């Protein structure tokens, strides 16, 4: 175990964290604004990957599959929120269960449409090379993942901090009732945030598809990881999601490399401790 091992594992951890950030930030925003624990989030990830595959098969363009898949899933999320979740009103348990019901429906849908084989999204050849920096091979695709997460993260951060819409979202996270009181249309904010969350999860699915593969069951594998990100970082906090994602990515990589038998335990046990000590997460607001 030399310096190179640590560097490579850190790089792998950060790039995996970048992927988790895409999934986790959407989940976090949805929870922050609507207090909905969305258990369909893994399904959005999976569907993002599958729709991207279909786009690639028909058009041959990987670059096109990114926005198309993400937008398609955003529309699915929007419909789900409008038609089913909104009429339920505020009842956390029923909302959670409803999203589980949908997760099962999405799972079966994906199985019917795309079959049960393990598939992979092939990124353009330009991204499959590695660059050598200081004697270490760094796959370009992992760098692309980090760049993508940075781009998305900064864009959302700017939108949240600098625009009127973003201020309205932040106000809704802090106190939805008060936000309604001052004339913010929290109903519309919820709709947009839910769609944005689905968009980000699907984008994660497309990007992660090249790296994890796309297969039935992936939805419920990625879901607990996304929750780990949200819980560690704090629900409804974008910066928290970024830090949570990095921590989970690194913990996952180092856990697997250093203590293979306990690797998932080393990931979820800190999550329990954080929840027990500070239920709102490290950076969550009360």
């Amino acid at each position, binding site marked *: 175990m030399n310096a190179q091992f640590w560097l490579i594992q850190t790089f792998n951890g950060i790039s995996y964290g970048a992927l988790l950030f895409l999934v986790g930030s959407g989940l976090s925003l949805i929870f922050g604004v609507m207090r909905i624990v969305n258990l369909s989030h893994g399904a959005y990830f999976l569907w993002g990957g599958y729709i991207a595959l279909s786009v690639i098969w028909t058009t041959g363009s990987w670059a096109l599959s990114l926005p198309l898949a993400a937008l398609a899933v955003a529309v699915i999320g929007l419909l789900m929120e409008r038609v*089913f979740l909104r009429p339920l009103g505020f009842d956390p348990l029923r909302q959670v269960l*409803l999203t589980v019901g949908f997760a099962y429906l999405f799972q079966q849908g994906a199985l019917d449409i795309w079959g049960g084989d393990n598939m992979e999204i092939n990124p353009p050849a330009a991204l499959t090379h590695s660059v050598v920096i200081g004697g270490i091979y760094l796959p370009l695709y992992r760098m692309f993942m980090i760049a993508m997460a940075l781009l998305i993260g900064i864009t959302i951060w700017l939108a949240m901090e600098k625009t009127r819409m973003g201020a309205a979202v932040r106000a809704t996270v802090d106190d939805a009732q008060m936000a309604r009181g001052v004339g913010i249309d929290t109903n519309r904010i919820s709709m947009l945030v839910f769609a944005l969350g689905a968009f980000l999860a699907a984008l994660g699915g497309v990007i992660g598809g090249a790296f994890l593969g796309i297969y039935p069951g992936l939805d419920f594998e990625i879901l607990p990881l996304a929750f780990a990100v949200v819980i560690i970082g704090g629900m409804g906090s974008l910066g928290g999601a970024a830090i949570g994602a990095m921590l989970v990515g690194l913990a996952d990589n180092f856990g697997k490399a250093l203590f293979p038998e306990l690797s998932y335990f080393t990931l979820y046990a800190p999550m329990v401790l954080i929840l027990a000590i500070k239920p709102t997460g490290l950076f969550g607001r009360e």
Partner: protein
Amino acid sequence: MGQKTKILSVAAFLLALAYIVPHSSSFVVLLATRAVVFAILAMSVDILLGFTGLASLGQAAYFSVGAYLTAILATKYHVGLGWDFWLVVLLGMLIGAATAAFFGLFAVRASGVYFLMITLALGQCVWGLAYRWNSLTGGDNGINVTSRPSFGLDLTNERTFFFLVFAFFTVTLLMLYILVRSPFGRSLEGIRERELRMQILGYNTWLHKYIAFIIAGAFAGLSGVLWAHTNGLVSPDTAVLTTSVDALLMVVLGGAGTLVGGAIGSAIVFGLREYLSTLVPWWQYVLGGVYVLTILYLPMGLMGIPARIRQVRALSDTTENRAAPDKLAPKPS
């Protein structure tokens, strides 16, 4: 329906079941055995969800420690294959209770959505260990439990085994029924309705919830022990998130806060999943659709249908139809 009528109808139903199932095809016997084992798990969830108002997304943890304990004792130490099966049953309940007692220290102080998430995280801890701790759990392949215990009874016979599992189910139902009718059970319901008021009345609500959590863990452990012998394979699938989710959905489907609701839910889920799946490929749409429709239109589950019908009738009788039926139903949260 009075309480006596209810008890009598449940008893009559159970007797009928005990008569019909063993006379059915071996496939139905197998299916019923699985459903009954999960019914015990679902009832343990109901103690938390229906009576205490805590939605647990990690009940698979206690279920799987019971199952793994049984599998490891049977395959590595040859314990639990004779009369000492009863010892394993006891140990399974104890390990379920002990795990719950430990996890409860973290989980019980949380409430609502946070309880949901912390139990999810705890369940994932157990899943992670089951999945990765190869030397103990056999990793992804799990552990094959090849032989069933034999103590005068031939449990390799599926019908005999069904009777054993069914007896466990009946005893569990009886014990949990006594529990929820006891003053302790009543105070749990009080916590479900309004925890603050119970605190003001001087109840130690944390302790009540903690004890309920441990009891639920013990019975989940029991169902795990039975599952190891029912399924013949204990793999990380027993601890996976979807197992916890299924148990929770079974309770909601049947009706939370009714005990038998969980059993009905379990029967429906297994019926749809294992019977319908042999008939049609789109069975999962039916299952998902049933979940979604139940949650949308029957917040009290299938057991709530009579009450729902009465409500609708009462509403159409009165001239004032303004009150929404949903508002009348007690909320499970």
